[in-house]
């Protein structure tokens, strides 16, 4: 994991520097009055002076010391920006995952157990729509629906969950639903498919033959094993959720990491772009690591190396 993050950080570092167009020239735009001294000062402030190796070292060691440099735009320390933005994105991802799992798993089980019933067809069609609907469109539709039908719009200024849980959840439920739908559909399809596989296995029949009640067989024998591949998928899905979070944060005006990143991109705020991208990659890598651990816990045959 550490090795991946190091390579990722090198790629981001080089990517930002090797792209066409000099950062300094872009910053000063067509400003002809900019003196070479001003440019050199800006280079220094950006940490763009010295060799690539020393620049990279300054950036990475800075991150470990909690000093990520300042934003070019607001001059705020980037560590401050990340400190307020990260919890928002994490909350969105966690809520999205929660919705997907809590609704997706039961739907998948029902679909598999009552195969070819009306509810099976309904959830399968719903699943196919779920993987095709763009999350930003769904977010817009939800906003329209709630404002038209219930004459209600979510509160505009962000409050943290710990300050005011009610207002916080009012703000978060629409974005969380918007990003969770894709994952929910994937989880549902996955659970249905693996349950169908598992239900045909010998040990399930054995358990039933021994007289274990159907519900208990489903819960203890079938579902537990059907969940293993689901966990892997959820690992991938964290990436989808992070991407979705980045987009709906903008729609709902939640100042999370994605919102920060997009703002930074449109303002060419390079230090922020660099660090926000690294943070997002880190969240993704850590989530996949966690999935590997859960995997080992669910299936003791798999050892985490």
């Amino acid at each position, binding site marked *: 994991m550490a090795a991946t993050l190091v390579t990722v950080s090198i*790629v981001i570092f080089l990517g930002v520097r090797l792209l066409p167009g000099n950062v300094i020239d872009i910053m000063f735009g067509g400003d002809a009055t900019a003196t070479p001294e001003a440019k050199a000062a800006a280079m220094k402030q950006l940490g763009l002076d010295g060799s690539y190796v020393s620049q990279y070292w300054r950036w990475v060691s800075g991150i470990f010391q909690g000093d990520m440099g300042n934003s070019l735009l607001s001059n705020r320390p980037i560590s401050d920006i990340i400190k307020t933005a990260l919890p928002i994105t994490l909350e969105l991802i966690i809520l999205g995952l929660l919705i997907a799992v809590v609704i997706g798993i039961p739907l998948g089980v029902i679909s598999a157990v009552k195969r070819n019933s009306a509810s099976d067809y309904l959830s*399968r069609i719903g699943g*196919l729509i779920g993987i095709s609907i763009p999350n930003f*469109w769904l977010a817009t539709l939800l906003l329209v629906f709630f404002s038209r039908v219930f004459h209600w719009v979510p509160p505009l200024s962000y409050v943290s969950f710990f300050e005011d849980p009610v207002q916080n959840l009012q703000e978060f439920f629409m974005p969380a639903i918007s990003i969770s739908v894709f994952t929910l559909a994937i989880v549902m399809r996955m659970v249905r498919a*693996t349950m169908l596989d598992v239900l045909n296995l010998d040990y399930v029949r054995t358990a039933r033959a021994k007289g274990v009640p159907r519900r208990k067989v489903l819960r203890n024998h079938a579902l537990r094993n059907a969940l293993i591949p689901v966990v892997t998928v959820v690992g991938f899905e964290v990436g989808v959720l992070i*991407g979705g979070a*980045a987009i709906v944060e903008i729609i709902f005006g939640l100042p999370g990491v994605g919102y920060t990143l997009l703002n930074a991109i449109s303002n060419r705020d390079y230090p922020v*772009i660099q660090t926000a*991208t690294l943070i997002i990659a880190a969240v*993704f890598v850590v989530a996949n690591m966690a999935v590997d651990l859960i995997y080992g816990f669910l299936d003791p045959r798999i050892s985490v190396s």
Partner: protein
Amino acid sequence: MSTASVTPAWEAVQRRRVIPQRWRNPIGIAGAVIVGFCILTALFGRFIWTLDPNAPVSDRLLGPSAAHPFGTDDLGRDTLARVIHGAQVSLQVGAVAISIALVAGTLIGLLAGYRGGVVDLMLMRVVDILFAFPGIVLAIVIAGLLGANRRNAMIAIGVIIVPAFARVVRAAVLEVMGFPFIESARALGGGGLRIMVRHLIPNIIAPLIVLTTVYFSTAILSEATLSFLGLGTQPPEAAWGNMLATSRSYIDQSIWMSIFPGLAIMIVVMGFNFLGDGLRDVLDPRVGGGVGDVVTKKIE
């Protein structure tokens, strides 16, 4: 040589088995119909619905009517004409992005799988790094840094799809490499290039077709997302994503502006997903090797 005698027989077997199966796949057919309709719309739609997508033709923010089936937008432009133009944009971006991913991914996968060893290790390391970023975030960063326009959006989307192609091609190549005909080709003096072109590529066509279809939907969705965020096709040119972005400012006055472009995206993405699922059943049930494929196989 060895393949020449094997191929016709194998094809005959395939043909017998495949055709009835293909027709028993309603989802795949539905997908083919949707995709076909979308391609026809993109190619010929503007000749049938001849209103200018960029000129005001009526009052602003109208709802659907006979004259303007999808209504009009904030500047009085015909939404149907703009949706048709958006289809052109989506398919063009999708096709270019997929071509980038197809060429780069196949080359990387072929080289990694065929050469093995250090080459494999290094190439796959690069692919793993690309996988360490959530796809759409990577696309946002690349498109944003390169500059917001359609060409850069194509590049960005192509790049995020490369790793998927590279991995699948590599896995398929490794599988084919185990067959005796590769060894005999080598024994007959076939060089690396000849083996790759004559023996490996023809044997990995099936997974490539499926991947191309499935990832076309990803490409279209990504294009819409980038345009929505202002990082893809730039207004006033119509793209489904930027139409939805504009519509957000007029939600209170007309909901129709936000309905049709979104529907178009959803239907086309669904079409490619369906078609991909259907093709997978017909061509190669094992494509990708991931657990996700079990799903689509089971879902029929």
